[in-house]
């Protein structure tokens, strides 16, 4: 399937099924109920798109896909987020976690599990960060010990997105000595209904409980659920992050363009400075130009690595500029209105404050750029 054919087929299908696909009117919802609605909408859209084939293109046949270039996935996500059919934050998990399973899970496990994620039957989460492990991911301490073919997991994760909805988790655990850093980490694929797992959502400033604390108390995981090699989990973490900074970012960029359009439609005359509007647009354009190259590099089979830190910083910068503009241009909506339009602007504005924090802070991205791209040597 070529992109042009995919694009016209998908656009036609989205137009034709607009009634079915459009989210239910979210008026009267707030806080956790908004996230419930986003998750239900995501499952519905993925299920319909899988049934029509669109959610399967760009994925390998051995995991239920129809093959073809990853560019098809980039366009699908752009169309779904750009049309406001899915919230980009909840949609992106598929793009982050499915490639990791395809790359590292035993073939049978990937073949059995990935279709459930693509079809919207299941939600997955990613257990990386810990209370003592924010920017310094290699210091993680959530422990896993292997006895008689079963891992026993003990410890805690935090900032785990959508854990309260998740059926499975890709979990990084400490399997080497406590000070083994990146050499002693193993990735496991865990069923979230296993006894011993407790999920506690965090209350965040935007009112959407996206992130959770997850506690593991002697949780049993079969050895067959090991992803990659024992003690080699750092490679999985490093392999996953570029996915997080490629297709998923492209989708978010499409969402930001749509929000900037809506802002320009609604803003009253004289409310915004032309310079600020031009700056936000130029940043968004630069991100899109950069990310577009990344999509084609990925589609050509190139291994993405540290250079995607540039994409990540460009997007975070553009995102904060767009929502800074929104707060300046639509103060009534962002600050006061409690209708669905006001609430959407407000939660998105507040969420944009975290764009330079989650997924590797702006400082960590710059450290990566300095070390890996500018070859400046160690920083201590």
């Amino acid at each position, binding site marked *: 399937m070529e*992109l042009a054919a995919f694009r016209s087929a998908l656009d036609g299908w989205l137009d034709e099924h607009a009634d079915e696909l459009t989210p239910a009117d979210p008026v009267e919802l707030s806080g956790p109920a908004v996230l419930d609605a986003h998750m239900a909408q995501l499952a519905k859209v993925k299920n319909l798109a899988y049934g029509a084939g669109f959610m399967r293109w760009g994925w390998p046949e051995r995991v239920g896909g129809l093959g073809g270039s990853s*560019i098809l996935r*980039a*366009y699908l996500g*752009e169309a779904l987020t750009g049309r406001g059919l899915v919230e980009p934050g909840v949609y992106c998990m598929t793009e982050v976690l499915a490639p990791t399973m395809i790359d590292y899970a035993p073939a049978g496990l990937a073949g059995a599990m990935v279709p459930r994620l693509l079809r919207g039957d299941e939600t997955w989460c990613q257990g990386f960060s810990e209370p003592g492990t924010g920017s310094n991911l290699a210091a993680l301490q959530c422990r896993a010990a292997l006895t008689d073919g079963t891992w026993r997991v003990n410890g805690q994760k935090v900032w785990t997105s959508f854990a309260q909805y998740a059926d499975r988790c890709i979990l990084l655990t400490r399997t080497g000595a406590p000070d083994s850093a990146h050499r002693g980490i193993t990735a496991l694929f865990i069923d979230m209904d296993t006894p011993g797992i407790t999920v506690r959502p965090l209350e965040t400033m935007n009112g959407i409980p996206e992130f959770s604390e997850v506690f593991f108390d002697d949780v049993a995981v079969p050895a067959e659920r090991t992803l990659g090699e024992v003690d080699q989990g750092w490679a999985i973490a490093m392999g996953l992050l570029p996915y997080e900074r490629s297709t998923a970012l492209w989708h978010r960029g499409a969402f930001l*363009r749509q929000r*900037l*359009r809506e802002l*320009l*439609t609604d*803003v009253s005359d004289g409310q*915004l*400075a*032309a*310079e*600020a*509007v*031009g*700056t936000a*647009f*130029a*940043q968004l*354009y*630069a*991100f*899109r*130009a*950069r990310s*577009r*190259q990344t*999509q084609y590099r990925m589609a050509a089979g190139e291994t993405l690595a540290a250079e995607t830190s*540039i994409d990540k*910083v*460009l997007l975070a910068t553009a995102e904060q500029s767009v929502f800074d503009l929104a707060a300046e241009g639509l103060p009534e909506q962002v600050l006061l209105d409690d209708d669905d339009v006001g609430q959407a602007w407000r939660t998105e504005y507040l969420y944009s404050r975290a764009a330079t924090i989650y997924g590797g802070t702006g*400082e960590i991205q*710059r*450290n990566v*750029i*300095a070390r890996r*791209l*500018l070859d*400046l*040597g*160690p*920083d*201590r």
Partner: protein
Amino acid sequence: MDTHDRKLFAQSLRQASEQHTGAALDAALDDLGWSDALAGDARDAVCLLFELQGAGNVTSSALQSVLAQALGVGPGVGVVLPPLGKWHSPGVLAGEQLLVQGLAMGALTGGLAVVWESKEPMVAVVPADDLNLRSLSGIDPALGLVHVTANLPLHAFSPAPANWPAAIATGRVALAYELIGACRSMLSLAREHALQRVQFGRPISGFQAVRHRLADSLLAIEAAQACADAAWDEPGTMGATVAKAVAGTTARTVGKHAQQVLGGMGYTTDHPLHQYVRRVLVLDQLLGAGSVLTREIGAELLRTRDVPEMLPL
């Protein structure tokens, strides 16, 4: 150009730009058939040469050639540029007289194309002898800018219609590449210094404040590069405006960071940084400065209340 030809051409251009500047570089470009390349595959010719020209801090008549081709006035003819910071056509009609005020650079012997606004933009080639030309030194004497004025009787020419907006757009893209080349050289100079300069018992490249300045420079450069590369895929002139806006802003940022990282060394004329700092200040202003173009883009978005379709996959 296929990949192999492109690589060879790039190598030849690199050698030429490392060995020559000014008229000598023009002669070397003639030998290499750069004008033919420009006529055949403008993208490769412009990307390769202008980035090298910026990186090497050298000059040529290439910008004139790019504009001349877009105006359809043929090779060997220069073009009168708008005054610094402007992009309107440099000619104005006053009755039967054509008043000209602008800038020129590079070879002038083949005459200079002057564009003016009538019902549509018109162009005519004027012999250099008919123009008042005054060499400008200013902040960047090596750039060889010339101040151009004239008061000419219109009946002496046979004007032709000209696509001035298209000429400005390709000129902006070329200048964006030249700025990017200069920025990459400034970053490289700052990086080398940071790795060698030892203070408090270690290279200053180990300090996060220094590393982040250099990282921010690379971020800005890669953003500008992506925009310049994307400009070729945009149907209208908007891509060229964004490319020049981002490249100009980037040059200000990178110049500032490089100067700070190089410390006192970068303030001396013993070190080459100052030549780049001078050059990018002028290049930023040619055909519209980054800050002004950014404001123009914003004003257009506010006027249309829409975000144009950008860069489809």
